[in-house]
């Protein structure tokens, strides 16, 4: 079973997934308790124009910077929009998502490699992850985890009881911005390697699945990370076997997401309902 992963590109793909598992376990817990599924989904779409502009300006090296800028800008705009009055939160999020993504499409649709660009954005290039990309993901992973460790108390208090947190002197608006920026960083860390489909799944599904078996946040984070790693391992193996043995083109990103969702479904009967 280990054999496929001794092939260098498979090994790097697995390492990338492992890094993302370590980030997404804890981060997805906050996505879950703050109900930020839609915001996560929006962020994965809104980095698209950044990716396109970055690539056009500086080639492959520019993608990272472009995604970073677009992600942070979206995080700020989303935070501001969701505090607005008459536009409901989710309508504002939807409009920002479609508008930013459309800008990306407009930019990319004038290029000849239009459809293949879009496809690689959706699925990433997990099997062509380079050592350099791995190093970048590792750096972002450290940054994100430290940022989360430092702020987890404030974020937890705000998620549970915004009014109480504000009364205790926490700045709720800044905390919301902080978490949205962290989510943007996760998207940036993952989107190039694994694509939007997988990133959005990694942000939403792990904690939602883990919540079925535990109501402790730390346990949820650990279970979530484990599930991501397991899905990554099995998903890569599955797409490897499918393409080599049976000549079925199964994109690895889809395989990983589907396994993650299968874990969610398997865990559903074990849901800890309110006692």
């Amino acid at each position, binding site marked *: 079973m280990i054999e496929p992963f001794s092939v260098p590109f498979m090994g790097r793909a697995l390492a990338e997934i492992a890094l993302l598992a370590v980030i997404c376990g804890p981060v997805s817990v906050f996505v879950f308790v703050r109900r930020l599924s*839609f915001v996560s989904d929006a962020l994965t779409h809104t980095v698209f124009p950044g990716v396109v502009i970055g690539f056009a300006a500086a080639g492959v090296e520019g993608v990272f910077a472009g995604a970073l800028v677009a992600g942070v800008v979206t995080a700020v705009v989303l935070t501001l929009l969701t505090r607005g009055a008459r*536009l409901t939160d989710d*309508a504002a999020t939807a409009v920002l998502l479609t508008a930013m993504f459309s800008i990306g499409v407009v930019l990319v649709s*004038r290029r000849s490699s239009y459809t293949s660009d879009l496809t690689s954005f959706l699925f990433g290039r997990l099997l062509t992850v380079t050592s350099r990309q791995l190093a970048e993901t590792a750096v972002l992973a450290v940054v994100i985890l430290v940022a989360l460790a430092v702020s987890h108390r404030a974020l937890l208090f705000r998620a549970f009881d915004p009014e109480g947190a504000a009364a205790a002197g926490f700045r709720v608006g800044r905390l919301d911005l902080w978490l949205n920026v962290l989510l943007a960083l996760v998207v940036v860390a993952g989107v190039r390697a694994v694509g939007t489909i997988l990133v959005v799944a990694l942000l939403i599904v792990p904690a*939602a699945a883990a919540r079925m078996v535990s109501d402790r946040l730390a346990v949820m984070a650990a279970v979530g990370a484990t599930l991501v790693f397991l899905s990554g391992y099995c998903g890569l193996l599955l797409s490897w076997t499918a393409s080599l043995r049976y000549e079925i*083109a199964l994109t690895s990103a889809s395989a990983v997401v589907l396994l993650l969702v299968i874990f969610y479904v398997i865990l559903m009967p074990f849901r800890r309902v309110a006692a």
Partner: protein
Amino acid sequence: MIFRATIEIVLVATLAGMIGVHIVMRRLSFFTMALTHATFPGVVAASIIGVNLLLGGIATGAVIALGVAALSRRRGQNAAAATGVLLSGGFALGAALIATQSGFSRDLSSFLVGSILTVSDQDLLITAGVLVIVGAVLLLCARPLLFTGFDPAGARAAGLAVGAWDVVLLLTIQVVVVTVVPAVGTILALSLIVAPAAAARLWTDRLPLLTTLAMLLAVASGLAGLAVSAQWNVAAGASISLSATLALLVSWALRKAVS
């Protein structure tokens, strides 16, 4: 070609504006987004097996709409997370199915941003038919839908079956999504549904006026976007969606200036 595209966008925009009002009022944007992704595997499977795409989409969509209705009614279930799981799972499944076929990336990009310039006469007929049906349903059920959406507890006390009306609305949304997405793509569908309704919402709270305004804004955005697309050779789906966003931004700015 342009002629058919123009008719199609007018029909689609009218449909989107009509249903968008309910989606914005009930905060169902994320649900709609999830629905566009979750019906995707049904459409792909239908095209592989060779049955009608609309039927495939409607069949999976109905299952999903009912599933979400059941999930969100149950206590102890984070509906946002469940919707998110549905979204990513559906998309991954659809993408996996489509990857087994040739012409992979072309199909996928048209799923996202649509191919309004290549609609057929049959597409037009189907859209027109759905428009008539959905329009009739929304018109006939306007009162209970409004009441149950605005004040579920009050509606229940007044003897309305709130759960049943929710299902009626979710199924109607789902029919619209399945009709609209193959023609114009998920991103455009979402923006045509949400942005004009949100813009109209800034001007009025009265349902008939709100709906009319939303439909007008949607059609105007559609036509403007199509013109821009033809003029400067950019993807039609994207330019239409940006026009709709612009309509919302202008409404918002005007509204700020007025009040």
